[in-house]
Each structure stands twice: as structure tokens, then as C-alpha cells.
């Protein structure tokens, strides 16, 4: 058994959308170890960053901040990285929840998510659904740019005004 590029991409997306920092997969002699930046050794985190940027669109790799593809989580982030992170944090826009409810990233279970890290959005792009009492409310980005971080998981309860995604204008 071997992994295709698409498989690896999908696995990275799963990790990306989860609240876990590390994923270890062993199937038929193939070992795949993924870590968010900052977790584990420099070498490993470097590898995961590379994978992270590969999973997103090339534009993420271009900006040279692969850390943002997976998120700023991780206690061992180097001070430089923290600085870089916070300095560009201020330039990022946020997509906030317009209401409290259950957040879904996909139009229906098993379907492709509305948007992923790297997707370009404008004000009207639907980025998810918020369910309130079985009523599905489309949530628009409200801002223009490229999604660099998704902050909530599929099925999470989101509060009113909670940041859902970060977007680079």
C-alpha cells in the first residue's frame, strides 16, 4: 500500500482541522508522522511545515510563513516565530461567527469543505454553515482575501462573534 499525494493532503487537512498537535500513522510499513510547527524536534517540525504548505495552495508557500497554515499552536515556538506570528497577526482579518450555533465546514457530511486554508474568498463567499435549531444558516466571509487559518472544527459549538478563520487581505 502506498500513499498518493492526495491522500497525504487529506490527512494533513484532517490534522489541520483537529485540535491535535501530532499524528502518527503506520500502515503496511509506511510510517507517516505529522506535527504542527513547534511541536517536537526542529527537523520534524520543518518536515511538517513543508507538508503543511504543500497541502495548501502555492501562495501560502510563497509568503514564506508555513506556520500559519497549521496554526500558531505549540509551546516550543521559537521567539522569532512568535514575533513573526504576532506581527502578521495584526494584518490578518478575521471571519467571525454571526450567531451562536453548530459550525459545519461542509455543505453536507462527507462533502468537500466550503473553503480550506489557501482558498480565496470575497465578502459573499460562503465559508460554512451555522446550525441553530435545525435551521442551516450560510455564513459568508464578510472579508476579501486568502484563508490562512481555520480556527474551529467541524461540528463545534461556536459562540456569537467567535473568530472562525483568519484571512490575509
Amino acid at each position, binding site marked *: 500500500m502506498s500513499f498518493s499525494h492526495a491522500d497525504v493532503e487529506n490527512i494533513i487537512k484532517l490534522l489541520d482541522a483537529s485540535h491535535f498537535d501530532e499524528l502518527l500513522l503506520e500502515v503496511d510499513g509506511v510510517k507517516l508522522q505529522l506535527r504542527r510547527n513547534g511541536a517536537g524536534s526542529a527537523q520534524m517540525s520543518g518536515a511538517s511545515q513543508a507538508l503543511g504548505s504543500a497541502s495548501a495552495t502555492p501562495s501560502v508557500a510563497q509568503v514564506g510563513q508555513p506556520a500559519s497554515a497549521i496554526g500558531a499552536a505549540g509551546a516550543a515556538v521559537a521567539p522569532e516565530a512568535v514575533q513573526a506570528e504576532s506581527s502578521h497577526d495584526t494584518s490578518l482579518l478575521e471571519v467571525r461567527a454571526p450567531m451562536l450555533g453548530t459550525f459545519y465546514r461542509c455543505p453536507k457530511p462527507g462533502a468537500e469543505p466550503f473553503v480550506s486554508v489557501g482558498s480565496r474568498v470575497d465578502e459573499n463567499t460562503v465559508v460554512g454553515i451555522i446550525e441553530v435549531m435545525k435551521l442551516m444558516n450560510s455564513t459568508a466571509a464578510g472579508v476579501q482575501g486568502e484563508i490562512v487559518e481555520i480556527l474551529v472544527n467541524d461540528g463545534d459549538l461556536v*459562540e456569537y*462573534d467567535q473568530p472562525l478563520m483568519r484571512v490575509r487581505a
Partner: protein
Amino acid sequence: MPNQDKVAFVHPNAAAWANAKQNTQVVSGGEPIQRVLVANRGEIAVRILRTLKHLGLESVLAVSKADRNSLGARMADRSVCIGPARATDSYLQIGTLVQAALGTGAHAIHPGYGFLSERAEFAQACEDNQIIFIGPTAQQIHRVGDKLEARRIAQAAQVPVTPGGPVQGLDEALAMAERIGYPVLIKAVGGGGGRGLKRADTPQQLAGLFELAGAEALAAFGDGRVYIECFVRQGRHVEVQVLGDGTRVIHLGDRDCSVQRRYQKLIEEAPAPGLPDKLRADLRQAAVRFAESIAYRGAGTVEFLVDVIRGQFYFLEMNARIQVEHPVTELVTGIDLVEQQLNIAQGRRLAFTQDDIRIQGHAIECRINAEDPDRDFAPSPGRVLEAYFPAGQGVRVDTHIEAGATISPFYDSMMGKVMAVGANRDQARTRLLQALAQTRLTGITTNIALHQTVLETPEFVRGGVDTGFLGRYLAKEFDAGVQENP
């Protein structure tokens, strides 16, 4: 500011109640409640959270964006932001609140008072989603919320109602007024708490106001029906606290809430001072009969107007919720009403019989509002710079205010309640005056000074003022003020 000795008031019956609680049985196979979502704000949210903590239950507080950093939000085990500051977009959103309970795994919702507490649709939405609504059934809320239906229930239960009734059209209204005598009140069927109320002293006035009353009622309550009642010239507002478990109803004594301004209660006390024994007993029995006749479940209040001149009482309305002034009853009975609400909501039978209830001493409450009595009670929103509340023997304060808190223009201006209990009315009144003198709230204007002067008027000291007392007092003070400053 010197630290006060914090001596909690412990009612002599408190230990007996604690034992009684252990012996209550679950009757309607309900799951015990473990986590409660509080769908309210302000002092009542803090009040409810306090009992949840005391009982070891988990709490989730639904907060608007404006209340994210409130005392309640920090007291609760968890808080969830349900919407923007405006109540219509947050605290009045039925779907959002039910979703918040589902999403946080809360088994029950406590609605507090105001907001959605008496909306049958909210109770129904909870029932539909297997969430326990801590209050009466949706059907009971609906029935007592409809003024005409409530009047019918009262009449059927042999509870006296004010002479009058529903009318259709001006001719019927004029005929009714002729029969019961002027002055009359035109009341909106969907109104309450003084809203949708007009007084007519003559047929000409009635003719002028009638159409307007219907149109206003339709606009305000979505229900244009009105009814006519005889106006009681000298009336006292006396209400009875009841508890029902769906089978049995008991009362926890009466409260007097006659110190009102434009139908907004300002000072409440328990028991009502100076009522003739028979009138008091009849009033309490009438409240129990009313609640029994609808198999009432939960804590509720049956309000009456006591006609001082005729020595009679009339049913006004039933409030199917916890009330602002509930603590004065707690102070003289030793019973935690929120705890009782939780027990009843879980399907437990009442832990007490009527004979177990003992009213001991006297309690008085002052509602502290951020408003300016010198500027026609204009709300005084802003940031509280200093907040110091009294403590000591027989003193209780229910509040959500602390230094740095914001009095938001989005909500009512009540900052909390300062209360005192004593062996008798005069001890309670003296303690309350001392407590008010210790209370220090700066940065905003409050009505504390007004409370202090009202508590010292000869009429209040004597006890048993009517609902027109405060209005007359303010008019007199205002005139005096004008004369002093020509």
C-alpha cells in the same frame, strides 16, 4: 473602607428544610439535572448561579456581547456568547438559547424573570428538545399570560376579580363602565406590569381613549383586545408566593409591593403590614385555589389589589416565574425558592406541607436603580467607579455590580437589591436604613437617597401605604424643590 463582619442570616428553619430535601421523592421519572443553562443576566443570573453552586450543579451562563465580562460570566462554570448587546438579538432569541443549551450539554434552562421567562413558546421549545424548562408548563404560562383567560380561571376558582370584563366596541365599553361606575381602567389583554393601561374618569374620556387603547395594545402586544375594570381609588398591591408540584400547591405567605412609581415596584416587604387577619388568610387561600385549579407546577406569584376603603381584594394577575422581590419571602421563611424551582422541575414532590411553613420576622427590600430621581428618573448608564455593598446581621444584597462594571443602556437600570430582615418590621426598616447608608456606588447616579427618605416618611413607618403613595410623595417633594429654588 473598613471590612464588615459578614454574618449571614440563617433562618431558624433552615436545617429542617435541608433534611426535608433529602426525603423528597422523584415522581415524574425525570433525569436529575446536572448542568443548567441560565438564560438571563444581571442580578438574577448571579442569584441563580449562587444556588446552582450551593447545590453542586454545573452552570452555563448565556451572555450577550455586552455581558461577556460580567460578574455572572465569571461565576458560571462556562459562559457562551449568544449575540449582540441588544436583547432582541440575544436574550430574546429562543432558538439560540435552546441551541446554546444543546451545544453545551445543559439539561435544563432557568429563564430568570423578564426576557423569555413567561413566553410559552420558549417553554415549548425546551420541551420539544428534551430540555427541562425550570418553570411551569408552556400551557400554564399561556393560560395565565392571557389576562381574560386568567380572569376566567380566577372566577372559576371563586377568586374575586375586579368588577368589569371584556368589551367589544365603544358601546359595550360605555355600558360596562356605566354598570360598574367611574373611574374605570382600560386594560390590554396582552399587557401587564402597568403597560397597556389607561384610566377614564368620564364617558367622554372613555370615548376618547377607547380606540387609542385598542390600537396601542395591537401595536405593543400584537393583540388589540381590551377589557374594562373598575378603578380602585385606594389600593394596595399585595401578592402571594406559591409553590406547586403539579399536584399540590402551598403558599409561602404574602408580600406588599405598594411602593411603586408608574407601576414599577421600588420597595417590597414580607409580610404585608397591617392586613386584617381574615383578609390575609382569605387572600392566601385564594392564591392557593387559583394555582390548584390549574395544577400549577413551579414557583409563582398571585397578585391582588386590596381595596383599602372597601376591605376587599381582587385578583390582578399571576406571574408564572421567580420574581424580583422573591428574596423577602426567602428571608422570612428560610426557603431557597430557586432550589425549590429546581426540585420541582426535576419532578420531585414538594418537600413541605403548608403546616411546615413558618413566617418569622419581617423583611424589606429596596431596588437600587441607576437612575436619577431629580431628572424624572432618567436612566444613568455608565461605568461604576466604586461599589461597596453592606453586610452584617440580617442584611442581604443581591447584585451583579462591582467596581468597573458597566451599566449598559441596553438593559433595565436595576443594579441590585439591598434587603434587611428583622424580628419585626421596625428592626428590618432600621437595619435597611443602616445598610443603605453603608452602600457606596459612585460613577453613576442611583436612587439610594430616595429610598432613605421614603423609608423614613411617617406613612411608610406606619406601614400599609397604597400604590398612590410614592407618586404623591414625589409630587410634594418636587413642588417643595421648585419653591426652594425660585
